[in-house]
Structures are given as C-alpha cells and as structure tokens.
C-alpha cells in the first residue's frame, strides 16, 4: 500500500484553512470593531497594526481554493456551487476591504469616510458570509450524480445565519484581543472592555452550536456520545471551559498577550470540534475525502510543489510577524 495522498492533502488543506481562520480572522475582526473606534487617529493605529501582514493572511484562502480543486475536485465543485451566493458575497467583501487598506491612506480627506465604510462593510460581510457558508456546510450538502442536489437557497436557513453571526463574534474577539496586544493607553483600555463582552457572547455561540449540531444531526451525536469516543473527545469541551476561564482571568488582570493567545486556543478548539464532527467527510454528510479525491497522479503531482513551497511561505510569514511585533502608537505608522 502506497502513501495515502488524500490524507496528506486533507491535512494540508485543513491546516491552510486553519491558518486562514486564525490570521484573516483577527484582521477581519479589526474591520468589525472599526465602528467602536470612531476617531481618525485610533483608526489609523488599528490599520497600522495589521497593514504589513494582511495580504499574506489572505494568500491562505487562495491556496486553500487551489488545493481543494487539485486534490478534491468533486468537493470543490459541489461546495462552491452549493454555496454560490454566500461565497460570491464574501469575495466582494474581501475585494472592498482589501483595496480599502490602500485607498484609505491615499484618499483625500473628504473621500476617506467612504473607504472607512468600505472597510467596515467589507469586513463584516466577508466574516458573516464565511460563517453562513460554514453553517450550511456543517448542516450538510446533499449530493446526487456528482453534483449539488439541494435547494439553491439552502444556505438561507436559521443555523447558517446563526453561525454567520457567531463567526462575526469570533473574529471580533480575535480582533479585540489583537488590539489589546498591539496597542496601549486609552485604546487598550477600550479594547479590554469590548473583549470582556465578546468573550461571553462567543461562549454563548459555542454552547448553542454544541447543543444544536448533535440534536439536529444523529451522525454527529453518535460521533461524540458513543463509547469509547466519549472518553477520547471529552477533553475538547473541558478544554473550552478551561480556556474561557483563563481568558476571562487574563482580561481581568489586564494581561497583554495572554488574551490573544487564549482566544487562538479557543478558536483552535472550536475548529477541531467541527473537525471531529465531520471527519472524514469532505462534503458532509456522506462524501469522504477518498470519495472526492482526484486521481493519485493528480494529487501526487501537485503535492510535490505544495510540500516544497508551503514551508517557504510559512517561514516568511513567521519572519514578517516577528519583524512587525510590538506596540503601535499613533504617529508611527508603517504608512
């Protein structure tokens, strides 16, 4: 038996999406939080905390898309056509907020408010529709004859809307804890206040999703609540509770970096929880990674390039975050 390239690709794509959620998560979160920081200098600082790295964050999204097409063309074609409108709206949101980074600083004084709004609207839309797409995906996409067989507006349902709001809250929390880490003074104090409320909001969403999915989906319930799985996976919810306690304590004690780190752990736990619910399906509820795999010749050929280049992109990412670490104060922008 040879190497299971489907498995390697699944891990690679899961990793890429994880990188995307974590990294674009906090910079979308900053756009979501923009309305709570109305002053121009505050907004300049917010943008400067992320300006050097944001486009690197989005490369993971493109890599995920291309990787999915190369390794699991069936999943790519079914998922992207089933979630047609949410994904298109997400892309439009990303375009607006992407160019807002540059155009906002280039705009004349009287034009700036437009790009501020584009940044807010684009970030909220991208986050919300990513959440909607995620919710619809978790609920399951019916497949018949190799094509999506559900309703065109199947994503327009309570659960996806709920996860859409949940992801907006998640990204906002990533954004606010990022600001705690990267700002000082009054802005940081403001970020602490926002963070405290967001933590409770997010816990509410996590609890609701954790109850909602097993109740509505027997397959997911079986995955979590049968023996011996119960013992294997019990640490996940316990760790969520532990992390939440640590996060709230870190905020109360006005710690600098800890809130962001704990939020990352929280997001990672939520992500792995979803992974446990769905594995090994690439199109829930019935198509596994092996069913959707492209021919081994295709997976192998593309894997050579990915294994060579992904580590380089990773090293470069780490290096640029390392270079741009530390507090950002007003007037010392990268712009």
């Amino acid at each position, binding site marked *: 038996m040879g190497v299971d390239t489907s498995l390697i690709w699944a891990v690679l794509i899961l990793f890429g999406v994880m990188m995307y959620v974590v990294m674009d998560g906090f910079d979308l979160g900053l756009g979501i939080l923009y309305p709570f920081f109305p002053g121009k200098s505050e907004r300049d600082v917010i943008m400067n905390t992320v300006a050097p790295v944001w486009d690197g964050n989005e490369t993971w999204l493109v890599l995920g898309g291309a990787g999915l097409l190369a390794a699991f063309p069936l999943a790519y*074609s079914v998922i992207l056509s089933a979630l047609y409108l949410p994904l298109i709206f997400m892309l439009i949101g990303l375009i*607006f907020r992407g160019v807002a980074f540059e155009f906002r600083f*280039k705009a004349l004084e009287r034009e700036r408010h437009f790009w501020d709004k584009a940044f807010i609207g684009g970030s909220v839309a991208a986050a919300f529709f990513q959440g909607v797409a995620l919710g619809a995906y978790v609920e399951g996409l019916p497949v018949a004859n190799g094509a*999506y067989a559900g309703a065109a507006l199947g994503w327009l349902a309570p659960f996806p809307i709920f996860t859409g709001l949940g992801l907006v809250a998640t990204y906002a929390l990533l954004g606010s804890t990022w600001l705690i880490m990267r700002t000082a003074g009054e802005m940081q104090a403001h970020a602490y206040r926002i963070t405290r409320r967001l933590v409770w909001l997010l816990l509410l969403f996590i609890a609701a999703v954790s109850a909602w999915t097993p109740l509505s989906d027997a397959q997911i319930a079986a995955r979590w609540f049968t023996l011996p799985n119960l013992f294997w996976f019990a640490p996940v919810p316990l760790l969520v509770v532990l992390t939440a306690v640590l996060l709230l304590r870190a905020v109360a004690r006005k710690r600098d970096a800890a809130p962001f780190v704990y939020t990352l752990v929280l997001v990672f736990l939520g992500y792995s929880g979803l992974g446990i619910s769905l594995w090994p399906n690439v199109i829930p509820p019935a198509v596994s990674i092996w069913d959707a795999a492209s021919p081994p*010749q295709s997976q192998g050929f593309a894997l050579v390039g990915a294994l060579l280049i992904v580590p380089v992109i990773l090293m470069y990412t780490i290096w640029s975050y390392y270079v741009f670490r530390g507090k950002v104060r007003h007037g010392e922008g990268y712009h």
Partner: protein
Amino acid sequence: MFGLSALQLARMQFGFTICFHIIFPAITIGLASYLTVLEACWLKTRREHYLDLYHFWSKVFAVNFGMGVVSGIVMAYQFGTNWSGFSRFAGGITGPLLAYEVLTAFFLEAGFLGVMLFGLNSVGPVLHFLSTALVALGTLISTTWILASNSWMQTPQGFEILNGRVVPTDWFKVIFNPSFPYRLTHMTIAAYLATALMVSSAAAWHLLRGNDNRAIRKMLSMAMWMLLIVAPIQAVVGDMHGLNTLKYQPAKIAAIEGHWENEGNDGTPLILFGLPDMQREETRYKVEVPHLGSVILTHTWDGQIPGLKQFPPQDRPFSPVVFWTFRVMVGLGLLMIAVGVWSAWLRWRGTLWSNRLFLRCVTCMGPAGLFAILAGWITTEMGRQPWVVYGILRTADAVSPHDAGQVGLTLIVFVLVYVAVFGTGIAYLLRILRKGPHDDEGLAVETGGPGLPQQPMRPLSAAHKSDRDDAADDERS
C-alpha cells in the same frame, strides 16, 4: 433574466471577470522583464536615468501587481462557483496546473518581490538585480502554468476518461500539448508589446506637454525598438499559431474566416470584411481577395480549408463575433508594425522626439496592445465553443446548475464592484504616469523593509509617496 439563460449569463460573467483580470497580469509580465532590462542597463552603464526609470516603473508595477492579485482571487473561485461541471470533470488536470500557478505566484511574492520593491539599499545592486530578474522569471513561469492549462483545454492530450472524469496519464504530454508552445509564445510577446505601447504612450504624452528629459526619451526609444523588432516577429508567431489551430481546431479557423464552404477545387479567398450570418449559413456583404486565404493558411495557391458547413450546426463557433475580434487583433497588430517602421524612419531623420503627429499617434496607441490581447483571447475562447475542453466536454455540461436570476444578480454585482474598485485603481495608475518620471526619481525613493516607513509585504504601498505628493497637489489646485 433579460431573456438570457443561466449558461449565457455565466459565460458573460466569466468573460467579464477574466477580461478585467488579464489586463493586470499582461502588464505585470511585460513590466517585470522591462525592469530587469532597465536595471541591467543601469548596472552596465551606471547612467542615472536608467535608475530613475527603474524606480518610476516599479511603482506602476506594484499597483498593477496588487490589482492582479485581487482580481485573480475571484478567478480561482469562479471555476467552482459557476463551472462545477468543469471542475468535477477536469479538475484532476486543471487543478494541479492552477495550484502550481498559485504556488509560483506566492513564492515570487514571498521571496523576491519585497526585495525588488524596497531592498536596493539593503542588499546591494547585484543581489537586487537578481531579485528583479527572478521576479520576471516568476511571472513567466506563472504564465507557463496557466497557459499550459488553457492550452490543454484547447488541445487536450495525455489523459484518459475514467468514471466520467479525466485522469492524467502523462503529465509531460498534458503540459506540452500541441497548441501550448504557440499560445505561450504569442501571449508572452503580446504582453511585451502591450507594455511597450503603454510605456511609449506615457513618454509621448509627456513630450507633447514639453516635459522632456533623458529618462522620458529613453522610454520612447526603448519601446519603439521593441515595436520595430518584435511586432513583425509577433505576426510570424501568430501565423504559426493559426496553422496549428487549423490542424487541431479547424472549425475555429472556419468561423474566424467566415468561410462556409469550398467551391470545387478553387483556392480559398480571404474575406477582408463581411457579416457572417449563422442562420443563413453565409457571410454577407463580403469584400474578399481571391486565393489569399489559401496563401495565408496553407501557404499554397490553391489549398483549401474546411468550411463551417462541414461541421454540424451545434458544433459551430459563433462566427459573427470571432470574425470581427480576430480582425481587430490583426488590424492593431499591423498598426503596431507600422508605428515601429515609422519610428525607425523618424529616428533616422532625427525627429523622433519632436514629430507631433507621431507623438499624438503613439499616445493614442497606449491601450492598443491590451485591446489586441482582449480581442485575441475572445477569438480563441469563443472560437473553441461549444466546447470547454475541446471535443470532450461541452460548455453547456460544464456550467453549474444555478437559475438565471442568481447568476444575473452576481453578474450585476461584479460589474458594479469591478468598475468602482478597479476604476479607482486604474485612475490611480494614470495619476502615477502623469507625475513622472522626473530627474532624480531614484534618489527620492524611500528605503523600505521591516520597521521602516515602507515594508515589502504590500506591493500597493510602493507607490504611496508619489501619491501623497499628488494628493497635496490636488488640494492646492
């Protein structure tokens, strides 16, 4: 929606987004090589105006690259959202090719673009030159992957069909498929010509306004040498590409020529102008030159090419469009050759910098190369219809099963957003072109890098300084 089917709307959407997108990579390919040549000239001669030009055009390069990336994200998702039948069927081949294109582009951005845009003072001239050259090489490698994918869709080979999807059997054959070398050469040269025309247009515009310096003259001069030498080569490559198409996609050639049937053993005439009519199965009001079609397409006096009537009606490309887009492309190409020859004449007479009619003409030709690229791509892509993978997958079977309302809605949104966003971006590019290049452009450049006012992560920022000056000018005026 508006009486259009979901398939037609999906095709319009793909056409619209790809036409917008291709402009940016074409200029990226051309400028990257141009910058390499400029820096090589500077290293060899140490003349300052080469460095001025390098810094000026690297700003244009940066903005253009950024817009190419943003519009490219949409392309990477559209194969799945709108063409799920295609992705499912052909993803095993086009997927890895696209993945390599994406990986190459990121590798390039991650590795060398930052050094190229900001690093001249930190890494020294020779390493910096190597970075520029590697960026240029990277753009060409990206072109290679994406054209391998497109060419495979035009002339597929090296695969078998198992369980209703393609399975690659020989990657070498997949990549080096019959139309690939011609398409790659034709497109790369087209990108160079389009860039040369844009560069010369900016130079001529400045000269007409009395902004005259060595850098601007050098721009015009280099671009005109390019046109004089390369535009005729492009005609030869185009001819070879046409012969290749005749061999593998004869219906496309018949549609391009508006050629319906052969009469006896007579040679094929060349229809200069006319109105192909798909219903009547004839080309009306045609003006034709006897035997010229045979001479061009078969290189003989009496050779014949297949007529459209030899193909069943459902397999015929839509001749009224490709007939005209092809003529627009060829017409612009001939114009480029003419301008090249004209420039040589004026150079010999010593009036290259002062002949106002010539300068006006060159200014107007600025977007001609891009229009020719668009016309050429429309010809080759619509000429492939009704197939998306030639001979094995029909476009109608490739489209996602959305209703027309949804596709129409997203099409309208894309048009509005693209016009607003990329319109702003293009206006911004034109602002940069209007500003320079001025003397000592090179000295005015801010150094960049970690912790400095500029950083290598974001190509669009490379241009910000001139824009701040520009905004200040606008406020004053």
